[in-house]
């Protein structure tokens, strides 16, 4: 007997949704037959606002593109401006940027651990990992003055040098977090509930991943080795030794494993950065920002974030203000066309788990 179809609205206010958006699903019994992402609850027209700000004033908006991990957005904007202007960045600043990006990556993954597990009803993991994330936020606070929004990476380098004794603190934190990874494994990957709810759920095949423009950990969870840090190296990633973990399978479980392994790689990168960081200048001073003009042209810089490729495209008409800026977010691809497609045939109880596993970040869709 065919069951009657019902429409359910998951979001915009829903504990399982990663932010202000809605997934409208049509279900027959427990099975989803149609899904539609509805956005429009959060649009702030940042790209338009940037046109009325000068090149430097954009930074207060940039970090709000994606709250859990704002640094890749700042970095890609800063690098796009440097590309367009041809501005050199001191070597030390590049290392500090990588340090920032990797710390942000770890912090965002730890927050994601909480979200992914909470979507399955496992709340202890989130309390542990988000608690540990605070140690990273403490580092950010000391370095930049802000725990979440940093506005630290800017054109020409970084805003200030590392404080005295900061490197030791970073290394101590890394030692602690590395020890904790074993606990995470015990609590998360050894957990039967987590295994049963994630293995074989939300599967994306390799072919589909390429066709639908999947990026980042989700693509690596499909067994495709793709990482901008390796493929199109920026800053000093080409001088650092790390591997890009991949997993066959394409389900939530594989994506979780990829992220878990990337935390270890981030720790490895951070240790190398501290070891190799040269002394010297950290900032190539920009002119007075109110008179600072960029040459005519456009530039696109992209960065590997925890969600995948994020990029900033800027166009200058030779004035003190951008002609147009455009932010490319990974969630823009994952959260709409891909999510709508892979939810079909899944159980309605898994919507939140699948959405979290794709790393959908609604502020990135509605900039």
């Amino acid at each position, binding site marked *: 007997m065919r069951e009657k179809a019902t429409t359910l609205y998951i979001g915009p206010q829903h504990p399982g949704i990663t932010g202000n958006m809605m997934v409208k699903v049509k279900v027959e019994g427990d099975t989803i037959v149609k899904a539609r992402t509805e956005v*429009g609850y959060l649009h702030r*027209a940042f790209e338009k606002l940037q046109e*009325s700000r000068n090149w430097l004033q954009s930074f207060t908006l940039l970090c709000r593109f994606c709250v859990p991990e704002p640094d890749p957005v700042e970095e890609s904007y800063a690098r796009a401006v440097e590309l367009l202007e041809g501005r050199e960045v001191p070597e030390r600043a590049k290392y500090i940027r990588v340090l920032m990006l990797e710390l942000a990556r770890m912090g965002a993954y730890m927050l994601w651990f909480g979200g992914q597990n909470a979507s399955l009803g496992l709340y202890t993991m989130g309390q542990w990992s988000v608690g540990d994330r605070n140690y990273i936020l403490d580092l950010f606070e000391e370095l930049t003055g802000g725990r979440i929004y940093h506005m630290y990476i800017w054109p020409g380098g970084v805003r200030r040098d590392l404080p005295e004794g900061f490197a030791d603190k970073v290394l101590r934190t890394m030692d602690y977090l590395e020890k904790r990874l074993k606990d995470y494994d015990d609590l998360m990957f050894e957990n039967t509930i987590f295994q049963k709810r994630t293995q074989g759920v939300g599967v994306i095949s390799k072919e589909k991943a390429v066709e639908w423009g999947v990026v980042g950990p989700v693509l690596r969870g499909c067994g495709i080795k793709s990482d901008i840090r390796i493929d199109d190296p920026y800053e000093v990633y080409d001088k650092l030794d790390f591997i890009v973990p991949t997993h066959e399978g394409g389900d939530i479980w594989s994506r979780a494993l990829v992220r878990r392994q990337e935390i270890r790689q981030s720790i490895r990168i951070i240790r190398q950065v501290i070891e190799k960081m040269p002394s010297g200048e950290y900032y190539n001073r920009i002119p007075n920002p109110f008179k600072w003009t960029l040459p005519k042209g456009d530039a*696109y810089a992209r960065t590997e974030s925890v969600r995948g490729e994020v990029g900033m495209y800027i166009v200058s008409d030779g004035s003190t203000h951008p002609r147009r800026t455009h932010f*490319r977010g990974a969630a823009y691809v994952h959260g709409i*066309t891909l999510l709508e497609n892979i939810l079909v045939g899944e159980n309605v109880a898994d919507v939140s788990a699948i959405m979290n596993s794709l790393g959908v970040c609604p502020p990135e869709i509605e900039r």
Partner: protein
Amino acid sequence: MNELKEVIIKRIKANFADAAERNDFKDNRLDIAVKKETIPSILFYLKDEMGFIHLSDIICVDWLEEGELEVVFILWSPVDKIKVFVRTRLDRDNPVMDNVDMIWRQANTYEREMREMFGVQFTGLVAPDEFILEDWQGPPPFRRDFDTAAYAEKTFWQRPGREDAQDVRETIAKRDGEEIPDFAKKYSR
């Protein structure tokens, strides 16, 4: 890398005679400008024959003074490690171009947003009418001639007590005839 870029340009020029290239970038970037009619075929060619399988971004830029809208596609080849910017210009008063979401599925989202924010019409685009804006009747809001500040002032209003840009506490005290306590006075502007 430069030889590789030359080879790519040569192959594109052999198939698309009207393509105008720009190859003076220091990094792995290449620019190709074509007519809007050529866009689907050149994108198909770049993806299927040249290995540019990843679509990074689609952007619309409003060139108000020139009366044109520019649409830029950024493609990436994971094998050759080259970025290609394919750009085309549309008439600003009648911006119509072909839909390309059969080449990359995610293009659908970009096109929906461009249709709403810039008024670009994509022939053959199958998508719900509304994306981000709800019941929007006005001009496309991301175009250069749309004044966001004027629109906001017309549509929204300031909270009472703020219109004179004074301290809210002072304004309310004045309005209601209240006395501001001494400890609060030092915080007054």
